């Protein structure tokens, strides 16, 4: 048979690919013809496959082990960190220019922003500047320089009063508790002198939701509810008479729509 020490190692690769089911169809006949005439090769293939099956089945025994809570917790923690890493890479990558421009143009006026929105967007869907601000708010944990104030879950009532005062408009709680989420914190961040109230929620599964509320200028458009996907997360944004809203969460369109509806209520 052809072994690793044989003068024709290519055929060893072919034999391995045959065993592993990755042999290209055009080589199948060649390998099968070789197996038909070479008893040693047949024996090798049979053994390799058999060992592979034994090891595969032994590994599958892990699937019958009870859940490991510590592993599950670490898995959630890693998912969150990787998600943040993806977002940060997105913000600092090719999308940075758009986000930065979006924030600047928001401050400069909605007319200029509308011009900007005609350009290529981050994910194939254009969105207004306050969405970009929310992305910044979503990363307030790592961009504390933007942050002006932070309130814990136990200070939500005080936070709403203070944020309403800062925004010079009444800010109501997003009230996602009705969907099983718990408020974790509320913050005020400033992006180019524009205040953005950001609320962070989390459900028992560890899924995070970020809600931002920012004043809507008199000349700015009134956005009807729209949901877009950004990487593995979803955004929903819309406007009321005097405020812009954005919700960021993982999940499906139905998830983000439900969250948005809860905030609108």
């Amino acid at each position, binding site marked *: 048979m052809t072994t*690793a020490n044989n003068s024709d190692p290519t055929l060893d690769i072919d034999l391995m690919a045959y065993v592993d089911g990755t042999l290209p169809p055009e080589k199948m006949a060649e390998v099968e013809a070789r197996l038909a005439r070479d008893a040693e090769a047949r024996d090798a293939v049979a053994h390799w496959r058999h060992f592979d099956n034994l090891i595969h089945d032994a590994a599958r025994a892990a699937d019958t082990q009870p859940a490991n809570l*510590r*592993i599950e917790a670490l898995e959630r923690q890693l998912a969150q960190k990787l998600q943040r890493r993806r977002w940060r890479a997105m913000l600092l990558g090719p999308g940075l220019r758009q986000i930065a421009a979006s924030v600047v143009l928001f401050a400069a006026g909605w007319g200029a922003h509308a011009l900007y929105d005609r350009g290529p967007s981050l994910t194939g869907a254009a969105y207004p500047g306050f969405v970009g601000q929310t992305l910044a708010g979503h990363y307030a944990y790592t961009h504390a320089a933007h942050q002006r104030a932070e309130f814990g879950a136990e200070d939500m009532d005080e936070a709403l009063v203070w944020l309403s005062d800062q925004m010079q408009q009444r800010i109501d709680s997003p009230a996602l508790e009705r969907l099983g989420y718990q408020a974790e914190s509320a913050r005020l961040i400033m992006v180019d002198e524009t205040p953005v109230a950001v609320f962070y929620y989390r459900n028992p599964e560890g899924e995070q939701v970020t809600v931002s509320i920012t004043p809507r200028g008199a000349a700015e458009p009134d956005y009807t509810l729209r949901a877009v996907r950004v990487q593995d997360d979803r955004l929903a944004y819309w406007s009321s008479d005097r405020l812009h809203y954005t919700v960021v969460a993982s*999940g499906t369109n139905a998830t983000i729509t439900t969250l948005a509806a809860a905030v609108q209520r």
Partner: protein
Amino acid sequence: MSLKSELHTHVASLRRYALVLTRDTVAADDLVQETLVKAIAKADTFQPGTDLRPWLFRILHNTHISDLRRAKTRADAAADLPEPIARECQHTQLELKQVLGALDQLPEAQRVPIILIALREMSYAEAARSLDVPLGTFMSRLARGREALRRIVQGVASGKLKLMQRKEGGA
């Protein structure tokens, strides 16, 4: 697939890989935990857009190697695995022990490619990336490892047969 579900699938794969490497369910879960702790610490080095699975497997592999060097745990570990779910006959268990025993005689560089491919969750290229070696090197190690494994197992079987024949002849 969302990142969470993707990660969940990979963690299940890590537990399978760790179980074959350590031969012990508690040690396997410890290895996976250690891997995840390191992955969390290194999350900022992960390149979004690249494949997550080889990255995680590489961390687990390196962690396992470090553990082996530090404590030589494999030498101390029992050669028993939990019952496989698909093949429960005694004969298969004996064969499994024989194959795992033969695997232990291979150098780490040959043993690990065999296990990674047996999991059937990665292409050759992904498995090579997991071990941080060129594809050609990986293929060569896999080929040599498989052939060495066959020789060892056949040698063991042949030795047992000769022993039985001697016993029968002497009786």
